[in-house]
């Protein structure tokens, strides 16, 4: 085989630079650049989920806001829920094309005619109804202890099944109708038995209420005397704590803190879906007033507060949905307001702390650099002055030995 001489192919600095730059430019062009996405509103994350996500990133448990919201709904001294119900009735009348007054809105007319806290005495009953609608069972002593009236109980049970998909706090997923129907059938079975399955913090948990769930509402049995009356909001909070204890007993504690829906989040979602059913038995004062008005004398609660099953069987009828849509959306916005106020407060604190800390660090580093420069300068000067003083002292001391050492101080160790 003939001798193969090696070719000298060393690159100069500029040749090397050019080949490297061509390579990096080709590389950059081959990268997929991030194109900002314009996501349509209906496909974006819901405002509720986003605020909860931000709160968790800020290190705050959104549970405090959920409890505050439950307190707002069931506050017996306040009239938040009453105002929302009146507004929703007004919206329903608007959808029917009925005007009670030319000067004022329907809601204002009704608000002026009914007592401001017409739901005050009903809130405990509403809280009990909510618990029955979430946990069941349909019949039995426990459901009777919560909701004694069979008519209210039957309506509530039917609405609990039909209303399982009434309102969602998250974005609407794309779900097949047959899957929705399957979920509804499963829910109905679980509610009838009183053993409902929940997905709490990414673990599947079956919760059954105690035999006498009225213990959550202050009545502990024939021999118990309550020291002070328990509010409906506190009762609901006790139910949440009960579920948390059950979850901890059933499943691994390690999973308790995992990201996922907590039970209070699930309860709030259910409350939104069932709120129309909960207020239905107690809107008498509003319809007593409406019966006196010629435009609304023929209206009954059934044809204003349509039940969830009626809405579910006729989903495109906006007139039927008007009351529920107004009530659920207004309550949802109230929940968002509570979350948003907390997010803004905590975010501002974080941002101020962050910028103050980074500015302090910058100033500290700048100060250290200046001190280092200054000590170099002054240290050098001080050393020079010190050396000069030493030299003068040695020269003076060495004068007596001049005869031996000669002139100057060279060779004398310092």
């Amino acid at each position, binding site marked *: 085989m003939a001798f193969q001489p090696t070719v000298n192919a060393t690159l100069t600095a500029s040749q090397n630079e050019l080949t490297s730059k061509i390579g990096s430019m080709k590389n950059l062009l081959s990268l997929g650049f991030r194109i900002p996405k314009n996501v349509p509103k209906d496909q974006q994350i819901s405002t509720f989920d986003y605020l909860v996500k931000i709160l968790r990133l800020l290190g705050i448990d959104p549970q405090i806001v959920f409890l505050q919201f439950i307190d707002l709904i069931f506050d017996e001294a306040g009239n938040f829920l009453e105002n929302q119900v009146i507004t929703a009735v007004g919206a329903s009348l608007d959808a029917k094309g009925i005007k009670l007054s030319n000067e004022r809105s329907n809601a204002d007319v009704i608000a002026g005619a009914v007592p401001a806290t017409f739901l005050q005495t009903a809130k405990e009953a509403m809280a009990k109804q909510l618990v029955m609608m979430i946990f069941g069972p349909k019949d039995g002593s426990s459901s009777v202890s919560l909701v004694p009236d069979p008519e209210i109980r039957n309506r509530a049970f039917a609405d609990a099944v039909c209303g399982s998909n009434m309102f969602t706090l998250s974005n*609407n997923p794309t779900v097949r109708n047959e899957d929705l129907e399957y979920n509804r059938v499963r829910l109905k079975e679980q509610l009838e038995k009183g053993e409902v399955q929940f997905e709490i913090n990414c673990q599947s948990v079956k919760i059954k209420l105690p035999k006498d769930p009225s213990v959550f509402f202050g009545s502990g049995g024939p021999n118990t005397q309550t020291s002070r009356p328990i509010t409906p909001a506190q009762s609901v909070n006790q139910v949440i704590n009960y579920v948390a204890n059950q979850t901890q007993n059933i499943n691994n504690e390690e999973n308790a803190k995992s990201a996922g829906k907590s039970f209070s989040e699930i309860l709030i979602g259910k409350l939104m879906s069932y709120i129309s059913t909960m207020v239905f038995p107690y809107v008498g004062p509003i319809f007593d007033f409406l019966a006196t008005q010629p435009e609304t004398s023929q209206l009954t609660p059934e044809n204003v507060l349509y039940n969830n099953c009626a809405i579910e069987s006729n989903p495109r009828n906006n007139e039927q949905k008007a009351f529920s849509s107004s009530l659920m959306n207004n309550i949802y916005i109230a929940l968002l307001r509570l979350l948003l106020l907390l997010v*803004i407060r905590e975010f*501002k604190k974080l941002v101020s702390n962050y910028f103050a800390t980074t500015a302090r660090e910058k100033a500290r580093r700048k100060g250290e650099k200046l001190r280092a420069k200054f000590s170099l300068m002054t240290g050098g000067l001080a050393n020079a002055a010190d050396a000069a003083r030493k030299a003068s002292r040695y020269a003076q001391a060495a004068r007596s030995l001049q005869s031996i050492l000669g002139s100057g101080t060279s060779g004398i160790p310092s």
Partner: protein
Amino acid sequence: MALIVIKEEGNKSEEVADFLLFLLRENRIEFPKLSLFQILLAKTRPGMSSELISSSIISRFEEAGIPKGPLVGGAPNVMENYTKIIAEEFVSAIQEDMRVDVAVDTGITVQASGGNAGGPVVAVGASIAPHTGTGVAS
């Protein structure tokens, strides 16, 4: 698909993000505007040095958990070399390629003196048009 749809007033997740980003921008500490005296004193600044910059960065490697000095087995610390290269290239670009475009606003006080047959003349005025200039960063 939920039967009751969330109304537009409650569909504000993007607006929430925009508002929080606005708060972030509003709360940042702005670099204070330099006074005329401080700007004139800039003549005493020593200028940028890539060696000082790279040594400052390397001295802070501990804050980021990056090891300093030669690595295990005596291998050269590539992060230090990388930092040195970046500092050199940046400073080189600033000192050799960067252009500073300056615009001077109207209102600079101007005084001129001269004379005519009637005697010395002093004129005091101000510039009436903005003017551009070029600077060099070093």
